[in-house]
């Protein structure tokens, strides 16, 4: 297991480097192919009506006129050993991992991401608990009562959940539960350390909106998985032993059906940690997703690179955890 983890971590580093190169290329190379030069790129980060010298200074400051390999190398070494940054009257040291300073606001990127992370974590984990419990329960019940009204109704709702976009369900839920009937007024992120009750209350709508989508998916998956599992031979054996039906379903059926569900769950959570962009934007939650959107709109390269790598990191780690989890859960699997 240890060798597996070490091997995976090495692969992770390699993968992140590849991701960074690709992001770098997309950001810098593609506009070049369209004919943009470094002066035009720099002009995006200066104010209106920039003088020529302002553009030149910005180019130099951001290193945009250096060859691409040097820019990339500077970026990479910043992550590993940190970098020095001239803030005007003084030079600050930005400790590793240093993702540089925002092209637009001159503020360090890493602390901003760290500040945004708890918001995304709160959103993702809260929703995850909701959708796992809700989705799996509905799926199991639907599978056991296949063909009944409950089954048909819940799968219909699940279809809606999977098909309706988040910005639609989010805006509708805000309209109904925040403005029309002020059950959750003034949805704004409050850190859990400040006021846990308010933190939870303000997150209920985003949790439910996000969980609705995933719960629907998981209900369908669990139902399919349960139906398949309940046809397995070992279920018949379990019954033949004289087990109560409840135990047959939970200990034998669910245990087997859940294995692929849990691994999918790991992947979904990993993806979400990189930022639930739509949900965060709909509810104005200042998490990594909103940070990503802002970075892209502002064409702010260090911020873009920062979130891309962080999201990639989460996904890769989630992948690894999922593989380990699978090996732990399923004794037939060797790492």
């Amino acid at each position: 297991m240890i060798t597996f983890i070490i091997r995976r971590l090495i692969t992770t580093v390699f993968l992140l480097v590849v991701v960074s190169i690709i992001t770098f290329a997309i950001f810098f190379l593609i506009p070049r192919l369209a004919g943009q030069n470094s002066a035009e790129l720099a002009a995006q980060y200066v104010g209106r009506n920039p003088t020529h010298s302002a553009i030149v200074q910005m180019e130099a400051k951001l290193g945009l006129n250096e060859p691409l390999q040097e820019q990339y190398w500077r970026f990479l070494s910043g992550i590993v050993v940190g970098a020095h940054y001239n803030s005007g009257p003084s030079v600050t040291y930005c400790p590793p991992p240093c993702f540089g300073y925002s092209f637009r606001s001159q503020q360090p990127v890493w602390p901003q991401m760290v500040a945004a992370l708890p918001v995304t974590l709160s959103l993702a984990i809260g929703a995850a608990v909701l959708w796992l419990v809700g989705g799996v329960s509905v799926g199991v019940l639907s599978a056991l009562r296949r063909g009944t009204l409950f089954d048909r109704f819940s799968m219909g709702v699940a279809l809606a959940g999977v098909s309706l976009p988040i910005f639609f369900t989010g805006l509708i839920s805000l309209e109904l539960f925040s403005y029309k009937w002020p059950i959750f007024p003034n949805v704004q992120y409050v850190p859990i350390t400040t006021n846990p009750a308010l933190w939870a209350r303000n997150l209920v709508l985003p949790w439910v909106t996000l969980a609705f989508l995933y719960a629907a998916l998981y209900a369908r998956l669990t139902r399919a998985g349960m139906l398949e599992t309940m046809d397995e031979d070992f279920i018949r054996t379990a019954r033949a032993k004289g087990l109560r039906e409840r135990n047959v379903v939970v200990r034998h059926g669910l245990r087997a059906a859940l294995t692929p569900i849990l691994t999918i769950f790991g992947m979904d959570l990993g993806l979400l940690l990189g930022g639930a962009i739509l949900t965060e934007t709909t509810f104005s939650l200042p998490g990594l997703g909103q940070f990503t959107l802002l970075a892209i709109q502002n064409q702010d390269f260090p911020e873009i690179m920062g979130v891309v790598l962080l999201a990639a990191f989460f996904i890769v780690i989630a992948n690894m955890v999922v593989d380990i989890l699978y090996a732990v859960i399923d004794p037939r699997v060797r790492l």
Partner: protein
Amino acid sequence: MRRRSRLAFAACAVTAGLTLAACSSGGSSSSGGSSSGSSASGSTTAAFNSGVNTVVNPSTTKGGTLTYGVAATPDSFDPGNTYYAWVLNLNRLWATPLLTYKSCTGGCGDTLVPGTATSLGQVSSNGLTWTYHIKQGLKFEDGSPITAQDIKYAVERTYDRSVMENGPTYFVNILTDPKYPGPYKDPNGDFTGITTPDQNTIQFHLQAPFPDFNYVVGAFSQTAPVPKAKDTGSNYQLHPQSTGPYMFQSYQPNKQLVLVPNPNWTQNEDTEARQLASKIVVNLNMNAQDLDNRLIAGDVDIDAQGIGVQAAARAKILSSPTLKNDADAVPGNRAWFTYLNTKVAPLNNVNCRQAVEYAANKTDLQTAWGGPYAGGQVATTLLLPGMNGYSSFDLYNAKTAPTGDLTAAKAALAKCGQPNGFTVGASYRSDRPAETAAIQALQAALTRVGIKLQLHGYPSGSYYSTFAGAPNYVHQHNLGILQGGWSPDWPDGYGMMDELVAGNTIVATGNTNIGELNDPTINSLFQQTTKPGLTTAQVGAIYGQIDKAAMAQAVILPNVYATNLLYRSPAATNVYAFAPYGEYNYAVIGASS
């Protein structure tokens, strides 16, 4: 299924919002939230558009919390490093420049009055030196006194573009010693463009006469004092030392700014600002739809960005009498234009350009921009109504033939040798729905006389740096018709027209003279305005001539004088439209709860 195009969010959100609007309201006064306009003052002052020319909820009551919301982020809250109108407007709460705008309604708001200075600048006879005296006894938020050196330092630091990259560059262009690298790179050097004979006097030395210099000083906050000892460069934006009625209590970039009254501020420091609310909260980076809903519900008092509510809220507000009472269609200190490039054939022939002017359907354009309330009045001039020198002329029959004068258009086409029309490229910003609708309206209108537009959409972020504002790109891609807009840095003929039609403003990137007009007559008219000793009326007359000459050259097809539909919370006091920014006047607004 789970990954959606991130940049398509805005468009989709608008659609969703429209659907919501269609589902809700529809006539009957839906919610309207807390203290709706009908109850509240009950006064006749709260009516539709009453904030345009009068003060709504006038009050001197102190206390309460005032909440602003913005669906954007500032370029910087450092007074020396911002160019956004709403930030400059908000700045006056913590930064007082030498001069400032007068806090009054209507065109009066365009008047410059003293800020930290005792009076408007005194210019030497050769026009090269401007002198300001500073009031006695003014202090920073920590109680330390404000001196002329602090103001000089504030301007000096903007010279280092690698740290202060966002702000205007007028000082660099106008003052002597333009190569000064800034105090960070040259800590011991002395900037000779500004001198301070004593603690309370400051003198600016110009390369050439610039009659609008008071505007350079007063329209922005670059002359708000900055103490050198507390200057942290690019981090100064996190807590600028206040010289206004409020100071920073906390600031989380991209999230929230909280202001509290500055105990060391006196009314004398800025006669035009007020210290009323006991707390001001600015929520940044909100979801635009959500912001509108909170405005209407009363959770947010004012949308500080001041460019108007989104389409969904607009529909809700205009269809509800209660909500409409709390809304104003405010002139936005901006015009939306179509530029006609003089280098791309066949638009290099003025007659072809005039044909475009005649054939445009101004009514459709107005509708595309949002109609009379949210789009604006049909425009026929470069100068905005109310500006010195403005006159309402109409060279291309926009008023008499608002859907287009096709006969005159065809005649003009014949004169430029294209009787059956021609094909040319057209550019616009594809992430702006109104602009997209406008260029499509223009395209439909021009087809009637055989002018075919090939539309090319570009992202806003790099529109001026890389596409429409890069003449090489424009020529290479045959973009003869380009959408854009203009909001003057200060409300006069220079601010409105210089960078649009003066020949010496054409640059390779970030170009704003998109028509690439270099007309000797117009250029010399601009020169004439710098002659010392001209009266305001005389200067106005020259600007009027420039306006007519430029319109005759047909390098710009004005679409609308922009109006923004703004919503004001009934809980906010002293709310009125402020001419220089086209938004409400943030320096005086208070809270009643």
